């Protein structure tokens, strides 16, 4: 069931260093790519159907195609600001295979005609950053970065930039603001970064896994890549499995794999005596699925969307029947109100109110009409802001309340959790 296109050599410690990476075929694809025409690489990536692995799932080849067709300088930014709750795959990719990312970036840089790239990594990732910085140093020393890479005449410089703690910087225009030395606040689109991004120059921002996936795509060709996954969601993807499951971890599987197979066959299912209650399939911003919906869900963009949720970053958060949904919504709302950048009123105020209302229910001060108030506030936040954080906070509310309304009503009436039998104060004083 696991299909290791990207993660084949992740268990080997030597794969982290340049010598070990090369021993396992590393940088051979770069040699091949540098002999191709840049447009051929773009066409191959487009034909592969690769979709952005950070969360939005937008076609990578199409995104690259938005760049102006002139010689204007352009930047390639790698989004390594992994912060979507439940997601921990990019960290593993950078720790285990830093050169795979670097190779993917050089190839992508060559394809789009960029000579400068940055890896923007979240500040808390001290260790992966050290691993990356070491790998970049090795790559420069070996002539894989810098001027005239492998005698091809192509120049590409790469640097690693550390964020400093802000979920919003995973949004590509906020990432650009942050890299420019500002508050990490998203920018209005259009203009899209491909037209006007970092320092108002054309810029492509791609996720770690997306850039790494360019390597096997160019190695084996688009047709081989498309043998995995579904027609509209081709290839493999890393899924971060977490929560109430026996074997949590990062697993690379073909897109389209049944969600229940990931949870039960790969993840070992629930702990003894526990039953699956719900699952958030794509990071905390994705609407929650009930156990019945999990039965019908496949891990591809279309199948999850047809159930009203999102594949997102591929963070599968498993919730068993010992959990209180009101309590968990409180956790999520605290997060979004903390992380709203404060720029747009519906989000800044809305996330604050959602957090307050859920916590007033949790602390026994809730009224029945507060449940509908949650829905009303969330409805008013959707699609009214510069970026998607506001929607990301609203969607969990709407799905939690509509699918588990009885738990919310019980909590309001009794002042305690229907599942746990205790109040919030007793649960976490």
């Amino acid at each position, binding site marked *: 069931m696991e299909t290791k296109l990207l993660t084949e050599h992740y268990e080997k410690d030597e794969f982290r260093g340049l010598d070990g990476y090369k021993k396992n075929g590393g940088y051979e694809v770069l040699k091949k790519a540098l002999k191709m025409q840049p447009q051929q690489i773009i066409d191959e990536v487009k034909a592969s159907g690769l979709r952005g692995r950070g969360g939005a799932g937008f076609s990578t080849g199409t995104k690259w195609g938005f760049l102006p067709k002139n010689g204007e300088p352009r930047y390639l930014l790698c989004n390594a600001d*992994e*912060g*979507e*709750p*439940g*997601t*921990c795959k*990019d*960290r593993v990719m950078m720790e285990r295979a830093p050169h795979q990312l670097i190779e993917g970036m050089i190839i992508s840089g060559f394809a789009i005609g960029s000579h*400068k790239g940055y890896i923007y990594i*979240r*500040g*808390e*990732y*001290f*260790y992966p950053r050290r691993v990356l910085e070491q790998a970049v140093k090795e790559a420069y020393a070996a002539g894989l970065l810098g001027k005239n890479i492998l005698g091809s005449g192509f120049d590409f410089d790469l*640097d690693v*930039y*550390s*964020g*400093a*703690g*802000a*979920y919003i910087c995973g949004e590509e225009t906020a990432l650009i603001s*942050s*890299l*420019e*030395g*500002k*508050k*990490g606040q998203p920018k209005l689109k259009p203009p899209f970064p491909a037209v006007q991004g*970092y*320092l108002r120059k054309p810029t492509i921002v791609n996720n770690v896994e997306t850039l790494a996936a360019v390597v096997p795509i160019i190695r084996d060709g688009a047709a081989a890549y498309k043998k995995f996954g579904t027609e509209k969601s081709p290839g493999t993807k890393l899924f*971060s*499995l*977490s*929560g*109430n499951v026996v074997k*949590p*971890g*990062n697993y690379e599987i073909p897109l389209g794999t049944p969600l229940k197979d990931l949870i039960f066959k790969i993840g070992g299912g629930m702990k003894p005596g526990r039953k699956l209650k719900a699952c*958030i399939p794509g990071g*905390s911003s994705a609407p929650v699925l009930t156990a019945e919906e999990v039965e019908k869900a496949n891990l591809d963009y279309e199948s999850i969307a047809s159930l009203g949720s999102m594949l997102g970053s591929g*963070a599968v*958060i*498993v*919730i068993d029947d010992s*959990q209180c949904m009101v309590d*968990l919504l409180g*956790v*999520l709302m605290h*997060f979004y109100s*903390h*992380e709203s*950048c404060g720029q747009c009123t519906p989000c800044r105020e809305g996330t604050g109110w959602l957090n307050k209302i859920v916590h007033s229910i949790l602390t026994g001060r809730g009224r029945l009409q507060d449940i509908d108030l949650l829905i009303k506030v969330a409805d008013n936040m959707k699609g009214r802001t510069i970026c998607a954080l506001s929607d990301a906070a609203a969607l969990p509310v709407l799905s939690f309340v509509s699918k588990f309304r009885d738990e919310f009503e019980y909590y309001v009436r009794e002042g305690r959790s229907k599942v746990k039998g205790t109040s919030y104060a007793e649960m*976490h*004083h």
Partner: protein
Amino acid sequence: MFQLSTEGLEKVKKELKRYETRESAIIPSLFIAQEENKGWISEEVIHYLSNVMDIPASRIAEVATFYTMFNLKPVGKYHVQVCTNISCCLNGGRELAAHIAKELKTDFGQMTEDGRFTVSKVECLGSCSTAPMMQVNDTYHENLTPESAMNILRGLK
């Protein structure tokens, strides 16, 4: 008055030349200064950086106050950050955080009397499949139990 060491100042000067724009050096320079100022950014630090970087203090303050990794008040020698986001919560992250604060006889966000520890609850640190976890200064500790976490903290010098 706060001043960077000669070495720290050299690092800041290097950062100023490292990126396409000088302002990109603000985040790295704040990290350098924070490390030399016992883990936090005071107003003095902001004005000092403004002078040596020749960037308005308001621009530096804007960055220092936006990002959570810049501490705007003193922290203990060991900053213990316990993740209490959803994947950790599902695995006892909140109970872990409460246990650590209780054992260290402190409240969240407060420094212990001996100045050794500050315990904070933080948002997702990307350690979801190895929950629950805590970060002590730069280091991640994963798959914790209340006991194993306290053993790690008691073992610190």
